[in-house]
């Protein structure tokens, strides 16, 4: 009688090629969307048909600022808000490197807002992934430049009185050549956007709307991560090519997603040469 021999399979994570498995488990809370954004990015890296030896990733500070540490690329975890400036140095010094900046809304748009504007204006060839959870999460839930009006946060206990910034509009008006927005529910579309943007020459911005169950939805009584996903399911609308002026996000208002900008402009290094 033949014995059925089962060979023990070596357990390999499907994303071992692009993620640093020796750093898992990651630091993000249950229900947080950053892991989903990283999953989409990892899938995009594998599908984009680019030489991963020639990709560098730079993060700033904050929850999303930790992304660089989990991705198996030449990776830099830098100062708060300055990831784009650091990445600009890499790109200018060696234009053969594909540079990705992966950071959060507070990091990129508040403290790093000026670098964002000027890198877009110069059209530095880089992909900026901005995870927008409407709050400063790592420091415990303070009001951010993206926090919708009337939202509660530890530093606006009576509701935010500051109108939030519209990231795609900022990117568009500053000169970005590719601007898209998705939520962490729309993983397949997000991944496709990452692939497109990785192959796009010039300053590309992908905004990823992400739940922060710990400091945004809990404080504002919106439920947990799953409830936020349900909200994204019921309250998002895809409008490719929508005028970026119309992309403001209010408290629990409908979120317009899609690819808004895809145009050609010579990049900084092309003009320099």
């Amino acid at each position, binding site marked *: 009688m033949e014995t059925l021999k089962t060979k023990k399979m070596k357990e390999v994570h499907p994303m071992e090629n692009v993620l*640093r498995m020796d*750093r898992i488990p990651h630091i993000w809370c249950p229900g947080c969307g950053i892991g989903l954004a990283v999953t989409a990015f990892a899938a995009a890296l594998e599908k984009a048909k680019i030489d*991963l*030896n*020639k990709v*560098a990733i*730079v993060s700033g500070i904050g929850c999303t600022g930790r992304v*660089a*540490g989990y991705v*198996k*690329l*030449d*990776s*830099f*975890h*830098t*100062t708060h808000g*300055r990831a*784009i*400036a*650091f*990445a*600009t*140095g*890499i790109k*200018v*010094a*060696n234009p*053969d*490197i594909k540079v990705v900046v992966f950071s959060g809304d507070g990091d990129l748009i508040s403290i790093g807002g*000026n*670098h964002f*504007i*000027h890198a877009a204006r110069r059209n530095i060839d880089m992909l900026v992934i901005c995870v927008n959870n409407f709050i400063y999460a790592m420091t415990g839930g303070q009001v951010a430049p993206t926090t919708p009006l009337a939202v509660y946060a530890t530093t606006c206990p009576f509701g935010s009185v500051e109108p939030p910034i519209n990231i795609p509009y900022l990117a568009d008006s500053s000169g970005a050549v590719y601007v898209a927005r998705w939520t962490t529910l729309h993983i397949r579309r997000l991944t496709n956007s990452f692939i497109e943007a990785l192959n796009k020459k010039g300053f590309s911005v992908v905004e990823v709307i992400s739940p922060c169950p710990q400091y945004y939805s809990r404080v504002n009584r919106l439920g947990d991560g799953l409830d936020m996903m349900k909200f994204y399911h019921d309250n998002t609308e895809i409008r490719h090519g929508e005028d970026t002026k119309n992309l403001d996000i209010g408290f629990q208002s409908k979120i317009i997603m899609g690819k808004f900008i895809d145009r050609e402009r010579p990049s*900084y290094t092309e003009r*320099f040469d």
Partner: protein
Amino acid sequence: MKKDPKGVLIGSHYLSGNQACAEGALSAGCRLLSFYPIMPALEVSERFLSRAKQVGATFIQMEDEISALAAVLGASWTGKKSMTVTSGPGLSLMMEHLGLGVMLETPCVIVDIQSVGPGLGLPNRPSQGDMMQARWGSHGDYEIIALAPSSPQEMFNFTIKAFNLSERYRVPVAVMSDEYVAHLKEEVVIPPANEIEIEPRRYYEGPKDRYLPFKRDEDLVPRMVDIGEGYKFHVTGLTHDDRGYPIMNEECQEYNVHPLVRKIRNYVENIVEVQETHVEDAEVIIISYGATSRAALKAMEQARSSGIKVGSLKLATVWPFPEKRVAELAKKVKAFAVPEMNFGQIVLEVERCSHGNANVFFVHHGEKGVENTDNILSAVKQAAQQNTVKDGIIECE
């Protein structure tokens, strides 16, 4: 990163300190300049830019000094020697990335053309008011290297030396110049490339999958690789282990930061460079650096001709401070006179290192012009007559 003789403009030239600094950078193989416009530092950038295409260098004018140094750090990891140049207010903005440069152990050079502060101050007048900021300006514990040139020729030489030290010790190195030296025009002799010593980058050579970004050699300096070579390394400004991974505990803090300090402190004798004149028989030694040492050396000669035994200790390296040498000399002399274009910064180090063995006279220098020796001379005379050691720093009017 091998020698790149393209940048060496051999010959004798009539250059300002700022122009000589740019030539020094190009001779050292610097191929990236990132800056934000500020006077009186701008001629360094202008000179560098005018020669950039010729030597295959690149540059970028950033949106502020914060991003200027951030870009330098990023660029350095691609294997290009990189530099930024600024003045007082810009140096203040760079402090955050000076700290990141120390933590990521990134070779780079920061040129500071000091002008008068605080605040907006007098942007086009010389000062030495940033000396302590260069040493302590970023938060946390670290060691830094800073050089102080006193002439256009030294602007050239010390800029090359700064690149060499930054590659050797993997630390940002500051060239602390000032408006006077920056705008002073003198002869600068640029030797042929084969006579210029260039410290190569300390590259890792080993299997790609074994590379640890912060595994240290015996002298505590880790080895680098360039972005894009397939090492897929990680570095972080957080407290980290040999892999460059953040480890958030006190043990790792000690493990990480001790060597940052020790890799410099253990080699102070190799780093420090001072120029001594007439110290053998001196009763009073003038300790000076940068533009001020021009007046100091003149004052020394004048005092000697009137019979006072005066010597000079000119600091080429200000940080790390030559504390051993100052302590030795303190036992031999009556006093030190320390002229500075500030209200007393390096004099604090001199007093600390004198251990009460010599009087320390502080001379607030520059009001009558940088090359004027009146105040230094009167301090030297006062110092020579003082036979008992007084506590603390004696301020000269």
